[in-house]
């Protein structure tokens, strides 16, 4: 959140953040759960509603701003990070959030996403990743698994997918996290950490599309599989997961990380998670533990480091230059500077 945003808490509740608009996602859409989690989290910001602005692009997820009683803009496909950059840079008093999807952020808007992240603009970017194009009725997306059968890939998609967290880390993001639509407590924890972060915060939210890509993340949710697939990252804790009798740990391996059965590893060799490591290589290695196959999927805060923000630096340059300047007088001075002559 920007420096100037006040944190003295008005006592608002989740319902205060509901707008009067009827929510129109498909029944069972993961977006409902995310909306409910966000509405119940927003009071924690301690801000009046008018100090919060949500900007979205195009796609199912991008309807989000309509359902929040804050300021909101539903913009154009892929451009929300650019528009939000303009707002955040000129308005340090606002808490600015971007809601986007895998097609919006990673395909048509990929350029704006990476540049917002490398600049470290004070934006909280929530990427709802359902690995499919929902609004246009079911084409493969830049995060769909290879071979995916869709209307536009009847013989299977041959597109190699992005790993959104790897991309964010490669874009010099200062805050990178992942969470699940179905785990409200975890989702709120991650939102809280993102909100507290100064600079760009990138949060990938795995979100189920019941119509075009149902159960894409079921392996992370089903009681039968989740313990062996889901890795909950906790700062300062060794990375352990797995069900009883099948405990797993994460250890260093070559230039990266790998999962090993706990009983094959000296406990001293288990990697202890730290999100504040300056070198992004560790977080990147974590992001590579899973790809389109979700067998070992870390969730939580991968990386959170302090870096100067773009908007903060831009404003301090302008403030320094403009301090105490009478603009009208300065304009006269500028126009009469250099070579001038007078005709009588």
């Amino acid at each position: 959140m920007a420096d100037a945003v006040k944190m003295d808490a008005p006592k608002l509740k989740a319902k205060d953040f509901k707008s009067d608009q009827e929510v129109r996602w498909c029944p069972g859409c993961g977006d409902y759960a995310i909306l409910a989690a966000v509405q119940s989290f927003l009071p924690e910001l301690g801000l009046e509603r008018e100090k919060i602005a949500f900007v979205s692009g195009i796609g199912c997820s991008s309807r989000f701003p309509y359902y929040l009683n804050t300021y909101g803009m539903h913009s154009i496909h892929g451009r929300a990070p650019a528009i939000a950059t303009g707002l955040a840079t000129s308005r340090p008093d606002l808490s600015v959030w971007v809601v986007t999807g895998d097609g919006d952020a990673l395909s048509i808007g990929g350029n704006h996403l990476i540049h917002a992240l490398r600049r470290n603009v004070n934006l909280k970017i929530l990427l709802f990743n359902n690995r499919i194009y929902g609004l246009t009725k079911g084409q493969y997306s830049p995060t769909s698994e290879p071979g995916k059968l869709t209307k536009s890939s009847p013989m299977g998609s041959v597109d190699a997918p992005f790993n959104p967290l790897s991309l964010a880390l490669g874009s010099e993001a200062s805050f990178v996290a992942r969470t699940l639509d179905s785990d409200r407590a975890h989702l709120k924890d991650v939102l809280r950490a993102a909100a507290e972060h100064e600079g760009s915060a990138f949060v990938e939210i795995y979100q189920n599309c019941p119509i075009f890509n149902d159960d894409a993340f079921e392996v992370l949710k089903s009681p039968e599989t989740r313990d062996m697939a889901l890795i909950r990252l906790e700062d300062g804790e060794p990375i352990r997961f797995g069900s009883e009798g099948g405990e797993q740990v994460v250890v260093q391996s070559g230039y990266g990380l790998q999962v090993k059965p706990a009983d094959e590893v000296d406990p001293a060799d288990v990697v202890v998670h730290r999100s504040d490591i300056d070198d992004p290589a560790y977080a990147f290695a974590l992001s590579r533990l899973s790809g389109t196959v979700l067998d070992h999927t870390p969730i939580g805060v991968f990386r959170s480091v302090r870096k100067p923000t773009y908007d903060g630096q831009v404003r301090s340059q302008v403030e320094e230059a403009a301090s105490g300047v009478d603009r009208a007088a300065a304009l006269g001075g500028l126009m009469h500077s250099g070579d001038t002559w007078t005709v009588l």
Partner: protein
Amino acid sequence: MNTVRQLDRVVIRFAGDSGDGMQLTGDRFTAETAKLGNDLSTLPNFPAEIRAPAGTLPGVSSFQIHFADSDILTPGDQPEVLVAMNPAALKANLRDLKPGGIIIVNTDEFTKRNLKKVGYDDSPLEDHTLEDYQVIEVQLTSLTVAALAEYEIGKKDAARSKNMFALGLLSWMYSRTTEVTEEFLRKKFTKKPQIAEANVAALKAGWNYGETAESFAVQYEIPPATLPAGTYRNVTGNTALAWGVLASGVASGLPLFLGAYPITPASDVLHELSKHKKFGVTTMQAEDEIAAAGAALGAAWGGALGITTSSGPGVALKSETISLGVSLELPLIVIDVQRAGPSTGMPTKTEQADLLMAMFGRHGEAPVAVLAPQSPSDCFETMLEAARMALQYRTPVMLLSDGYIANGAEPWKLPDLAELPDLGVEFATEPNATDASGEPTFLPFQRDPETLARPWAVPGTPGLQHRIGGIEKADGTGDISYDPANHDHMVRTRAAKIAGIDVPDLAVDDPDGEAEVLVLGWGSTWGPIGAAVRGLRDRGIHIARAHLRYLNPMPANVGEVLGSYKKVVVPEMNLGQLALLLRGNFPSADVIGYNKVRGLPFTSNELQDALEEVVKNG
């Protein structure tokens, strides 16, 4: 003793390799000329390549200045004096020179090798190529090096000062003083006093050479022009635009936000504004043209005056964002410094072929206001007008400058800043309606009955939280609406808002009222058309003229004006874009296009011929 001859006007072109410093030479000659009180107009012409191979035709850079003892409108059709620093400069510019004109050549550069580079088998100085001209041969390089022998600088650095030698020589020929340039050089090279003094010495050596060498029998004087009283400066269009942006900030009291991506010939607006952060202007060099427009729109949503600058290819990329601006009904100023297209086209050359893109280059019914400055200094006021329209009507506005205006310069009588318009905006701070249960509520699309503008409630305003977006909105509430009647109503309302923008009537210049032909232009053709009309009237030919600054909406009296003349000639540096609009809107007018797309401004001579043809033969 030299003879001094009085002239009323001269056109000089300095030409050399792009590394020879011709733009600086021209700029300094301009400053000296302005100081002397002549009216003037300048046109730089440089290659798109930053450093094309030395001595080649693509590497030639030139600067033309027209100055006179009366007011003038163009940089001149044909130079009467050509300074050619090498064979390439001679070859590239010779065909433009007036027969009988003066050529000053740097003979040191006329080596076999340099001649061969540009395809001269024999030196044009020794055959008949130049027999129609007065050729003055000067060993510019070696004279400069000799003059700087006592300075502790290398021969190469000494030779680089030859442009100052040339400037000194021309300053003598045309009776300019060199003090302004000396002062400039000492300031420019504050940290390298040795270089400063060497340049000053080269300048003086050139001046003295003119006075003593026998090749120069005649010195010329061009008396000052009689211009309206006031303080003047020379200004390029891009600088005037940037200062217009600063003035819009002063006049509106709003913070300024420029989103831009570097592109020729618009980048200088970004550079200029980046220097002036003390005016509360934020400049963002965005990752692309789309982001530049998006960030400006985002800042506008937040209550800033949002501006994005580009040229044709970049404006094409911004199109979707401009349409969003139309739908959101937020102020956004889009500056298109037009260049020759399509695609990369000729980036450093001028054209007016983006008019129809500005008018219609969007999806859906997405009208915006469009206006165009007519000369470099006019960019200042046109920018203020663009800001007025954007802020008052909450709409994107397209301002169409072009490469000729952007880089060309002319004296500008500095405006009285006390007379800046009041562009102050009232943001919405209170509910503007009551809901069904009688509670106060805010309707983001409840319009001002007069301007049809919607309220501008910036994020952060307590109690007015609302959502806006590109989806069609219900009139008043702004809620998402797919209602057919509502969409029809909203499309028509947005169109009516733009059509209803208050613009002044078109002024017609028809001194004796006997003209049957009207010449109607827009944008940078103002100067050449004006010079052509003057030429025709001097010969007793009746012709009326008018120039459109407001292209959308057009002034209310345009139809009436067109109807008052038998024929209307519309010169444009495109294939007839304004003509198409006029024929569509005013089918009874007899509109005749005069169109050229050579990347160069019209000459007043060709326009005179074309207009005379219509006047005489219809």
